[in-house]
């Protein structure tokens, strides 16, 4: 598996304001940041990293619509077409009584679908192993990971850039 090992440069930051400014500065120099690891949510980091708005809500809508159609098809087939029964003096197609089940199926499928989609796009699987660049990112340090192979600048230039923008230390690490 030697081919899949990649080289990373890690900038360690103490303060989130410095971090945000550094991210903006480093990205302006054309550096592609692999990921930033923080011990707590940093406000405004999505904008600094230039992340687009998640399309998860579109997925949720589509899953929800699937749930709506599934529930209605199931109930109309069972109650109206396959085995029509008179219940409570209602029509064979008592639409209002179908609404609660339709609603629940919509919510269920959109919730499950959204969680599933999120797990897939975040690459979270039970047998997966989390990338841990620096254990201190779970305590009090922010780690900016930059993948060398995906950048035109070389190691020393990136290190200098990180130092100049306020990194307390710059490390290197190999990861598969």
């Amino acid at each position, binding site marked *: 598996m030697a081919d899949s090992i990649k080289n990373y440069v890690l900038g360690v930051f103490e303060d989130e304001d410095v971090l945000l400014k550094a991210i903006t500065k480093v990205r302006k120099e054309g550096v592609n940041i692999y990921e930033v690891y923080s011990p707590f949510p940093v406000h*405004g980091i999505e904008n600094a990293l230039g992340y687009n708005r998640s399309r998860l*809500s579109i997925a949720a809508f589509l899953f929800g619509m699937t749930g709506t159609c599934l529930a209605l098809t199931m109930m109309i087939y069972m109650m109206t077409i396959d085995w029509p029964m008179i219940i409570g003096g209602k029509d064979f197609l008592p639409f*209002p009584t179908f609404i609660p089940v339709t609603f629940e199926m919509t919510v269920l499928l959109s919730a499950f679908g959204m969680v599933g989609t999120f797990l897939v796009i975040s690459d979270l699987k039970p047998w997966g192993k989390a990338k841990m660049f620096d254990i201190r990112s779970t305590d009090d340090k922010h780690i900016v990971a930059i993948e060398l192979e995906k950048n035109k600048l070389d190691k020393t230039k990136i290190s200098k850039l990180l130092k100049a923008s306020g990194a307390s230390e710059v490390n290197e690490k190999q990861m598969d």
Partner: protein
Amino acid sequence: MSLGKDYIFRLQTKKQLLILFASGILLTVVGAFMIINGDGHHEEVSSIASESSHYEFHWYQRFFSNLWINNVYFTGISVSAVFFLTIQYVAQAGWSAGLIRVPIAMGSWLPYAFILMLLVFGVANHDIFHWTHEYLYDVNDYRYDAVIDGKKAYLNVPFYLSRMILFFIIWYILYLMIVKESDKEDVNGGETPWRKMFTISAVFVVVYAVTSSVAAWDWILSIDTHWFSTMIGWYVFASWWVSSLAFITLIVIALKENGNLDFINHSVIHDLGKFVFAFSVFWTYIWFSQYLLIYYAHIPEETIYYVERVKSGIYAPFFYLNLICNFFFPFLFLMTRASKRHTRFLKIACPIILFGHFIDFYLMVTPGVLKENGGFGFMEIGILVVYLSSFLFVVLRSLSSRRLVPKNHPMLEESLHHDV
């Protein structure tokens, strides 16, 4: 620090409102003449109705019915704006600090609403409320009604009036106490007024939880005296609340575009939009809860309420329009993030929701009062326009009477940097 511009109630705006008011009166008069002269279709309907329900229909009954719809509708918008104000203080909310003077201004309609309520009830109680007729309680009269007689302990004019007076007085006193603290805050600053407003608001929230429900029984449910629904308190509240939110949103957008509240950012607008969207769905939830139980149980004395609406040529279109304006449209239109963040979408959605909830109250009141003699014409639109222009006049005058931005609000800074 100069933040925003205070609102000035210009002569031009006053004139525009006056023109609106006059055109409303004109529409009402035209509508009244049209009802008096009546077209062939109308007479036919009313003759059938008068046979079955043995009472004669007069045009002024429809007039009173409309007054009552607007009374309840605008009282609700006003008192729910005070509710909005109080939950902001109870939750110690920061995002809304910049726009808090808008609901304060909307609460100033309460005394006028009180006078209008008393007047209309005093003049038209027999025309709107069947239970106010004394013969219903007289065992010897052939029109004696055992069911209504059984509700006499609750539904009698003195108790009814004292409840109405009590509610308005409590609402208005608590509202005035909040306004007083808010004005003090402008002069003195500090946290003391804000903490006091927290306490008063907490009291108001508890009071409103009970009174809004009881007011709904009195003002709406008692029209259909034989029928009852345990959902009506929530139903009326939901309708009031979402109308009020839509109205607040519209005023805030208008002030923002006028340059008065220019510091209100997209995130604050987004939160208002979320409120409107969420409570439109909440209203639907309540509407459906009431409908489904009655549909499923299939008890004649309950289903009659919906039979009068869905099986009637006059009301059925409004029954569906109600659902389209208040659920399908806002649900689909305001679903995306962008539509809640940008004023141009909300400027389309909020008026439609406001009109939808007017239709909602129209459907709650009219079929019970007028049976098959109702309709929707110039009179309905005219009286709505008259009330709307008066309401706007009172609200805008109140808005111009104090500083638009509560400059000493402890949370103002948070409102300015609100980001979601």
